[in-house]
Structures are given as structure tokens and as C-alpha cells.
């Protein structure tokens, strides 16, 4: 039980009433603008004292209104990457990075400055003043600064929003390594980007207007068709776990999951490793017959589990593939033409290139 949050708070018209528990790993706080994500993360950091409730990190009580416990932010050792970077304007980038170093206990573990600078591309910026940095550069320095304070947990409020895709691709695996490496650094991660969340999160907390709509292990929450409106239609999809079987010479990797084999490009994991795949509903085609002469390499026999017809032209089809479920988003016209109904056996067609590296996790 890495993080327990159970708080109520009012600010003006807005009222927060949030309760969730996060185990190890990365917990994503997902919700629309104004849902209360920053408010929650501020409460965890100790920058805001909620009206009532309890917050505990690693079992240590940080806030408890009943027993009048309130640990000040400086004592919590939570590295906070703010939505606005909040760099110290009077210090150079280097000094900003080193700011927190002296306050961590001697035995605290964390990444060293060199590796952080290299990864975040900060080395050429070290002697610069924050005022001369671009938006994305500031955000990277802020992330580095939080990491180098050797926190027990990382709080990140949309840290990658102002970064370009390529930079994100570099930083995301790093965050995963922090989580999985010897530090096992837990992260509370606020994001609008479902792909980031799906890749990173172990626990997903869906927040809406200050209330938790759904919370739990990522796969449970993501596979729930009820979560689709919250996540966004384009982003709905299933998350499955697969084992790396072999790397072929042409760069494709064969992976095995309960529903069969998949051939995907760009998988970095070692043979035998378990990885997580996010298969977007819109990337899954359904075919009555096994298609031939098609560029898609992944054709899996599946059974229709359920068909959710919306009021629009789209439909969500749940496909059972072994013990896993896939989600497919097709048109209602196709549902009719293919006469899809629960129990109907058919084939799921997944393009190898659709499941891109960003959706391949641990």
C-alpha cells in the first residue's frame, strides 16, 4: 500500500471527495481539465491541507484530520514536478538541479546527476539561466530537479505535456526503469494523454468533477467499456500481457499471449520477458473468414463476446482471445453486414505497425 488517499476538500464552488489506494508502481490520475487532479496531488505533497481525511505514504501518515496530523512538505520527501515548472529564477540550471541534494538522508538512493542530465538532455543547459530556456526545456529541468532530490515517491503533474513525441519516447522508458529498477520508485502521475497512461500506469484513477469514477488496476479499468467515454473513444482499447518468444532477423518480435502469437516491430525486451501491450480498439479489424494476402501479420481466431451499439455510427465489439479480451471499434454497418453477435467465431486482424513502441510496456 504505497499511497492511501481519502480526502474531502472545498475551494469555492469546487468540491473534492476522493478516495483511492495505490499499490507499488505508477498510479495515473486521469481526468478532464478542472477535474481536481492538481488539487489531489497538492494535497499529497502537503501544499494544500484538505478539509478532512487521511493521506498515507508507505504506511506513514502524512495527514490525518482526525488526529490532527499534518507533516509539512519538506518532511514528506516526495519529489514534485509541477504543472508550471517553478524553477528558481536566480539559480542556474545546475544549481536548480542540485537544490534538493543536501536535504536527502545520506543513505537515500536515487539517480545521479550525470545520468539524469544525459537522459533529459540537460548537459548543454547546465550553465543557463531558467529565463533563457524554452517551455519544454524548463519542464525537463523541473523533472531532473525532482529526481535528484532522491524522493521516496515522485509526483508528476502533466510533466510531458510540453514535450515533443521523440523526447517523450526517451523519457517514458526512463520512468519505467525508475519504477522497476532497484529504487522501485512509486510515481503518482497526472496526465491527459491516454497513451502515456496506458503505457505507464499500474493503477488508474479516473477523476471526474472531484470524484473518483473508477479506480483499480490499469487493465481492469481500461477494458471496461464504461470507461470509454472518460478515456475518449479514440483511446479506448485493451491492455494485454504477453511474453517475448523470439526476435526475428527482419526486426519483428514474436510474442505469445493467451490468445495466440503476435508479430510486432520494435520490441526491446529480452526473450522470456513479459511485456504489456496496448491494442487500441480502432486498430482491430474483424473478419468472418481468415483473410489472405493481407499486409496485416496478426490474424487471431477470436469469439465475439459482446457487441455494444452506441447511438452513433460506431460500435464496440468485445472479442475473447484466449483468456484475454480485445476491444474492436467498427461501424454498426459492418456489424450488420458481418452479422456479428455474441458467440460468433471470427478473426481479429491487427496490423503489426499499429501496436507501436509507445504502447509496449514492461
Amino acid at each position, binding site marked *: 500500500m504505497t499511497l492511501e488517499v481519502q480526502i474531502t476538500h472545498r475551494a469555492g464552488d469546487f468540491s473534492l471527495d476522493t478516495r483511492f489506494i495505490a499499490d507499488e508502481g505508477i498510479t495515473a490520475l486521469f481526468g478532464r481539465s478542472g477535474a481536481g487532479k492538481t488539487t489531489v496531488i497538492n494535497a499529497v*505533497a*502537503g*501544499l494544500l491541507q484538505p478539509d478532512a481525511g487521511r493521506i498515507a505514504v508507505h504506511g506513514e501518515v502524512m495527514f490525518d484530520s482526525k488526529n490532527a496530523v499534518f507533516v*509539512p*512538505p*519538506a518532511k*514528506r*520527501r*516526495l*519529489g*514534485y514536478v*509541477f504543472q*508550471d*515548472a*517553478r*524553477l*528558481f*529564477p*536566480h*539559480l542556474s540550471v545546475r544549481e536548480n538541479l542540485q*537544490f*534538493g541534494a543536501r*536535504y*536527502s538522508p545520506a543513505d537515500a538512493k536515487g539517480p545521479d546527476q550525470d545520468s539524469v542530465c544525459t537522459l533529459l538532455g540537460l548537459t548543454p543547459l547546465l550553465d543557463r*539561466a*531558467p*529565463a533563457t*530556456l524554452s517551455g519544454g526545456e*524548463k519542464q525537463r529541468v523541473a523533472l531532473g*530537479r*525532482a529526481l535528484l*532530490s532522491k524522493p521516496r515517491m515522485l509526483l508528476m503533474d502533466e510533466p510531458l505535456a510540453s514535450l515533443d513525441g521523440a523526447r517523450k519516447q526517451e523519457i517514458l522508458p526512463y520512468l519505467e526503469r525508475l519504477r522497476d529498477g532497484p529504487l522501485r520508485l512509486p510515481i503518482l502521475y497526472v496526465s491527459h494523454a491516454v497513451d502515456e497512461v496506458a503505457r505507464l500506469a499500474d493503477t488508474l484513477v479516473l477523476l471526474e468533477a472531484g470524484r473518483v469514477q473508477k479506480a483499480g488496476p490499469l487493465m481492469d479499468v481500461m477494458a471496461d467499456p464504461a470507461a470509454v467515454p472518460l478515456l475518449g473513444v479514440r483511446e479506448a482499447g485493451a491492455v494485454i500481457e504477453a511474453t517475448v518468444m523470439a526476435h526475428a532477423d527482419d526486426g519483428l518480435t514474436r510474442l505469445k499471449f493467451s490468445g495466440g502469437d503476435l508479430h510486432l516491430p520494435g520490441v526491446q525486451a529480452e526473450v522470456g520477458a513479459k511485456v504489456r501491450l496496448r491494442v487500441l480498439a480502432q486498430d482491430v479489424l474483424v473478419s468472418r473468414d481468415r483473410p489472405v494476402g493481407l499486409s496485416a501479420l496478426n490474424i487471431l481466431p477470436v469469439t465475439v463476446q459482446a457487441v455494444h451499439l452506441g447511438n452513433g455510427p460506431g460500435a464496440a465489439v468485445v472479442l475473447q482471445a484466449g483468456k484475454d479480451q480485445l476491444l474492436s471499434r467498427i461501424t454498426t454497418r459492418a456489424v450488420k453486414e458481418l452479422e456479428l453477435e455474441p458467440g460468433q467465431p471470427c478473426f481479429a486482424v491487427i496490423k503489426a505497425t499499429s501496436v507501436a513502441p509507445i504502447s509496449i510496456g514492461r
Partner: protein
Amino acid sequence: MNPDATAWEALRLSLWVSVWATALAIPLALWVSWLLARRSFRGKALLNALVHLPLVLPPVVTGYLLLIVFGRTAPVGRFLEVLGLTLAFNWTGAVLAALIMGFPLMVRAMRLAIEAVDPKLEEAAATLGAPRWSVFGRVTLPLIAPGILAGTVMGFAKAMGEFGATITFVANIPGQTQTLPSAIWTALQIPGGESQAAVMVVMACIVALGAVALSEMLARRVAARIARS
């Protein structure tokens, strides 16, 4: 129209007194400014009013009050004298007078600067583990450097110019308590003393200009460092 020995002596003493007064006032003024800007406590309004008082009272009154409290025959004055600190009729008293008269100016400048610091930066420092003192020393203090500078130059200028409270509290003894303003006033007390006074006024101006110019230079340097992000 060369400055005579009295003038040089007065200048030396004034500089000495002003430097001491300013140096002693800075930490105190910082503390009071911080209290006024960031804390709320009972008696805050009183403290605030007390700080402003030397501005409102005619300096002579402040001088008399000092004499009443710290005079050699007053209990506090006698107590300090036992401790080896003679204030009345001593340059140390001139320091005290200058300090008190310049204090409101210093506090105001520093307080304004503290109030202008974005508390979000202090919060950020706290999340990095910095205890309150470190936050003040490593974030607040450097960010208010322009305000400290402004307060310091004002306090110094006021200390250089302080007259009424000083002459009342420590008298006007050449070489001991006769500051530049006292010397100027004394020169003006006898007919024909104007030219002697003028020389000393020029001296005072030069010191003031120097201090102001120095502070501007430092301020520019500080500002360049704190260029907003």
C-alpha cells in the same frame, strides 16, 4: 574652501556610525519585514505601528525618548552601562539613533520585496526537502536582494542625514558624537558659517551619490541574475 579638520572628523564619524547602524539594522529589519509580510500574530498591528513611529515623530522627540530610556541616569541606560555599553553621549548612541530613524525605511523596502516573492517558489523548495530556514536563505533571500539593497541604501542615506534625534541623544561633541549633519548645523549657527557648512553639504552629497551609485550597480547585477523565468 577646503574642508577643515572638524569636517573630516565629522565625515569619518558619520560614515562609521552609518555603516554600523546599517549593518546592525539589516538582519533586524529583515526579520521584522518577514514577520510583517508572512506571519500573522497578535500585536502585529502594534509592531507595524511601532516601526513607523520614528517617521511620524519629530526627530527631537525620538531623541528625548532615547534620552529618557537610555540616558545615563535611566535604568536601562544604567544597566547597559554596567554591561559595558554606554549609549548616551557616545558614538554608539549615534548608531542607535541612526538605526532607529532609518529602520522604518529599511523595513518597508524589505517587506515589499518579500511580499513580491512568489510563494510557489518557496513551496517548490519545500517539496525538495528544504526546511523553512533554508527556504528563506536559498530562495527568499536571493530573490529579495533588490529590496534588501534598496532598504540598505535608504537606511544608510538616512543614517548619514540623521540630525535631530542624534544631537538630542548624544549631543554634538566633535570627534565623539559630532556627525556631519551636526557639524553642518553647528556651522550654520554662527553668522558666516555658511561656506563651512556648504563644504560639508558637498561632502554629504558625494557620499550619498556614491552610495546610491554603488547600490544601483549592485542592483543591476542582482537583477540580471534574477531575470524572471
